[in-house]
């Protein structure tokens, strides 16, 4: 198989740099960063608020022609009503949790499968490795979004979870590939060698020696996988693919756009779901930046004063 990781390894910071004080000793990993807190806040608060708001707003407000269509935001309808007479705010309240669920399931499935495959492939090498590398090399050459369009088009009536799993089908090889390269360096570390020499089972070494050392890295991949899955799912929905039986933010946005909300100036119809999605993505982005900095402390310095 072709060797595609051609990324040259940067020369390790040498002693000259240490003497000049560039390479600082590693700081203790800190999980308390303002970025992380802000990111989680942006990401999670809409979910919590939407779940709480379900107590105040009934699902009947999201029924077709519950109200007059296309009314501007008012005291009765804070975000107005859409083209089929649904309360936009109510639709958002009932769309948020399923959207989340889909993204988390897709991210989780891709990360778990990918991590397991990556660890096994990197630790055992041999046929397992060849298989994982072969698959991930092929997948890297295939544009996932285009393939997903075909899959979603063929499998007409996908459920939301089904869509999430199909997306994960395309995301796990990338996780596996990244985890594998981490494991390749980890497995040469003395503490792993010692474990091996002391006759511990491979399963125990992988679970108790390798996995704990991959937690930060895998977390970063997980956050990336969630936001990737969300972007793809909403993209598919905007084209009119994916499930239409569950209310999601992507579906709300697609309804608005396909009904010409933009050209008719019905901003309250398309803007709220779009804005909420942007909020999600920004939150996820901040979280991933924070996790990256925890994984790689040198980034922290560069981001700030330097």
């Amino acid at each position, binding site marked *: 198989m072709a060797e595609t990781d051609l990324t040259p390894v940067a020369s390790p910071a040498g002693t000259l740099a240490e003497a000049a004080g560039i390479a600082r000793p590693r700081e203790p990993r800190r999980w308390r960063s303002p970025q992380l807190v802000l990111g989680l806040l942006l990401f999670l608060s809409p979910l919590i608020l939407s779940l709480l708001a379900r107590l105040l707003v009934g699902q009947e407000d999201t029924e077709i022609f519950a109200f007059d269509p296309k009314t501007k935001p008012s005291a009765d309808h804070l975000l107005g009503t859409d083209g089929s007479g649904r309360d936009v705010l109510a639709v958002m309240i009932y769309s948020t949790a399923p959207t989340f669920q889909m993204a988390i399931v897709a991210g989780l499935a891709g990360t778990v499968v990918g991590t397991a495959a990556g660890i096994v492939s990197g630790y055992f090498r041999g046929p397992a490795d060849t298989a994982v590398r072969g698959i991930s090399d092929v997948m890297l050459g*295939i544009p996932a979004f285009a393939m997903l369009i075909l899959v979603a088009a063929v499998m007409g009536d996908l459920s939301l979870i089904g869509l999430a799993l199909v997306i994960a089908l395309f995301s796990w090889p990338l996780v596996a590939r990244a985890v594998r390269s981490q494991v390749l360096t980890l497995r040469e570390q003395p503490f792993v060698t010692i474990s091996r020499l002391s006759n511990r089972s491979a399963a125990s070494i992988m679970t108790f020696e390798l996995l704990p050392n991959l937690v930060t890295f895998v977390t970063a991949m997980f956050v990336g996988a969630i936001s990737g899955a969300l972007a793809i799912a909403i993209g598919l929905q905007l084209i009119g693919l994916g499930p239409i039986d569950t209310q999601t933010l992507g579906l709300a946005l697609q309804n608005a756009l396909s009904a010409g909300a933009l050209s008719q100036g019905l901003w309250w119809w398309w803007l709220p779901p779009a804005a909420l999605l942007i909020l999600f993505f*920004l939150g996820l982005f901040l979280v991933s930046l924070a996790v990256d900095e925890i994984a790689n402390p040198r980034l922290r310095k560069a981001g700030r004063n330097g």
Partner: protein
Amino acid sequence: MTLDYALRRIAFFFVVVWITVTAMFFLVHLAPGDPITDQVTRMQASGQALSAGPELIEEYRRQFGLDKPLLEQYVDYVKELAQGNLGYSVTNFPTRVTTLIGDALPWTLGLLATAMVLSWVVGSLLGGLMAWRSTPAFARGLMSSVMLFAAIPYYLVALLLLYVFAYELQILPTGGARDPLGTSGGPFAAVLDTFEHALLPGLSIVLAFTGFFMLGMRSMMVSVLGSDHLLLAEAKGLPERRIFLRYAMRTAILPQVTTLAIYMGYVVSGSILVEVLFSYPGLGKVLVSAVDARDYPVIQGVVLMMVVTTAGALLILDLLYPLIDPRIRYGRD
């Protein structure tokens, strides 16, 4: 050794393409429902075809070779494909898929290649500067805000741009690639018109990918910053700009080339939504119309085209990378 590596790499490209073709073929043909029946039902529903439903279906099936055993169909399909024949569109029957793709491809490539190269250059430079020690703090802050665009999927950025510039301010066209009524005033006006139409879709891609390339460059730069050869460059009394460009950027930029190649390939499929939002007559638009009509030969053709560009970009990268990074040699495993 060199030739061996190149041949293996080229063989791998064809393996990727073959696997995709096969996967697509069986996905489409084993899926519940039959594109022809669908199409005829659709035509009947819209009153295009009248009573002769079953006969029409049979006729179509024969034309598309769907009456043969599946394996034979597959062999035929691959044979045709090898000769560059992607078949016919179901919805616009006499039109070949290759014609549809040929009409759309220049728009997609023109828009995307320009936007990607632009965002790569700007993003790499900004990302490098962002990590650089003597960049003023306010400039860094400004750059961080550009980086935020990397967080948002480009189609949401596109949506906002479309709303603000085309619908609210009405200073740019809402869609299409050219003014449908044509332009008067010679070739210059025509070029300007094309540029105006490409500006918003291009900008949404540039914004999203600039931030993305900045992120990559920033972290590469950070790892280069601690290295000894930068310190020696400073000891050598070289001017700051020379150190930045020839010592820091030059080593940090190499992995960025990989990223560019990978995303150059992906963006062809990734920009589908931008083309849809702006009704830009590229591959993405063709694909989505085909999805709407479940026109499988067209879907297969466009997806294949996208796979070829993605895998092709990676192939070219792998073959050329040893030329740009002296540390990499062919066939090193």
